[in-house]
């Protein structure tokens, strides 16, 4: 009865609304909500920790945390480690290039080629290899916004710390959230057994 009523109600809707309803991703479940909550808590934790360290607007740490956050219960820690490894490769290549040469487009292109190739071929760690050249672009960008080499290197080091710090905080939030989620599932199971 209820089903036939809802079907009738569905047919009364305008065509556009029905199309939107058909496209609504029911299969995605609550994953998006869980991602969003992790980003919320990750942002707050990151903001406070970097604020204590004197970095009051850690933009790169925030971006890195957003890109690294994961919700898979069993694979999240491993997936985060993969991303951290790629980011570490990219930051390392960027820092070496900045330390050795003056920043320029050819150096940047070469550094990105190198970090992409290293990440693609030598890092058999899974994850997205593109994270490495992205980290290289971010770190080497510091050399372009400062006039002296030392100032550029200093900014590049800050960006590296922000990127890797964002990854570590995303990992910590992911670990804590997984434990809380698992504990809540256990409690739910025990309550249902008692009932």
């Amino acid at each position: 009865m209820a089903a036939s009523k809802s079907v009738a109600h569905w047919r009364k809707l305008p065509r556009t609304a029905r199309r939107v309803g058909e496209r609504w991703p029911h299969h995605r479940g609550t994953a998006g909500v869980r991602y969003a909550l992790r980003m919320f808590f990750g942002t707050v934790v990151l903001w406070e920790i970097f604020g204590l360290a004197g970095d009051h607007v850690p933009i790169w740490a925030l971006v890195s945390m957003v890109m690294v956050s994961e919700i898979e219960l069993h694979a999240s820690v491993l997936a985060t480690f993969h991303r951290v490894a790629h980011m570490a490769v990219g930051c390392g290549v960027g820092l070496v290039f900045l330390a050795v040469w003056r920043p320029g487009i050819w150096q940047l292109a070469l550094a990105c080629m190198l970090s992409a190739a290293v990440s693609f071929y030598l890092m058999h760690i899974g994850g997205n290899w593109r994270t490495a050249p992205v980290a290289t672009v971010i770190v080497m960008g510091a050399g372009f916004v400062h006039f002296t080499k030392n100032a550029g290197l200093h900014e590049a080091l800050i960006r590296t710390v922000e990127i890797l710090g964002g990854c570590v905080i995303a990992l910590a939030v992911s670990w804590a959230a997984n434990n809380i989620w698992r504990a809540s599932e256990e409690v739910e199971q025990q309550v249902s057994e008692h009932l």
Partner: protein
Amino acid sequence: MHTQSASDGRRWLGHFPLPHREPIGVRYALRIAVGMIAVWIVFRAFGDTYPIWAMISVVMVSEIELHASYIATRGRIAHTAAGCAVGLIVLALAGTGIWQLCAASVIASLVSFYLVQLGGNWRTAPAATVVVMATGIQHFSRYAGYQAAVERAVEVLGGSIIALAVTWVAAKLWPARMETA
């Protein structure tokens, strides 16, 4: 014994890009480098001295196959537009601050994850929102955030289109046998 060590050696060598293997990694690296130089030249001509988001877009969108690159471009542009729009709306309605930043990143995540179904990485939207909102906080000004949103949107659009063009040219000049990685 000898056979065992030979197979171990082959397995170890298999971890490296030998000449007989399809050099997909080299193709990707070359496309990224060419795309970056193109982005650099184009954006410098318009007065943008370091188009960082355009360069990151080149890295994220470059593909071996043209269709895959088109899908990645479409998704990246859509997610960036969604993220910048959420950032602009929250900035206009609530101003700058850490709680506004958190709320905006949550909204952008939900919008991008559930509504923008055009492929690509949905995380691009919250990343764009975070950049827009954090720039507003950094400069104590909504207008800095508005400017960051417009800059990021333009750079992502330009960088993605240039990467797509590089992929098209490269697919004509050096067609691949293995199309994915």
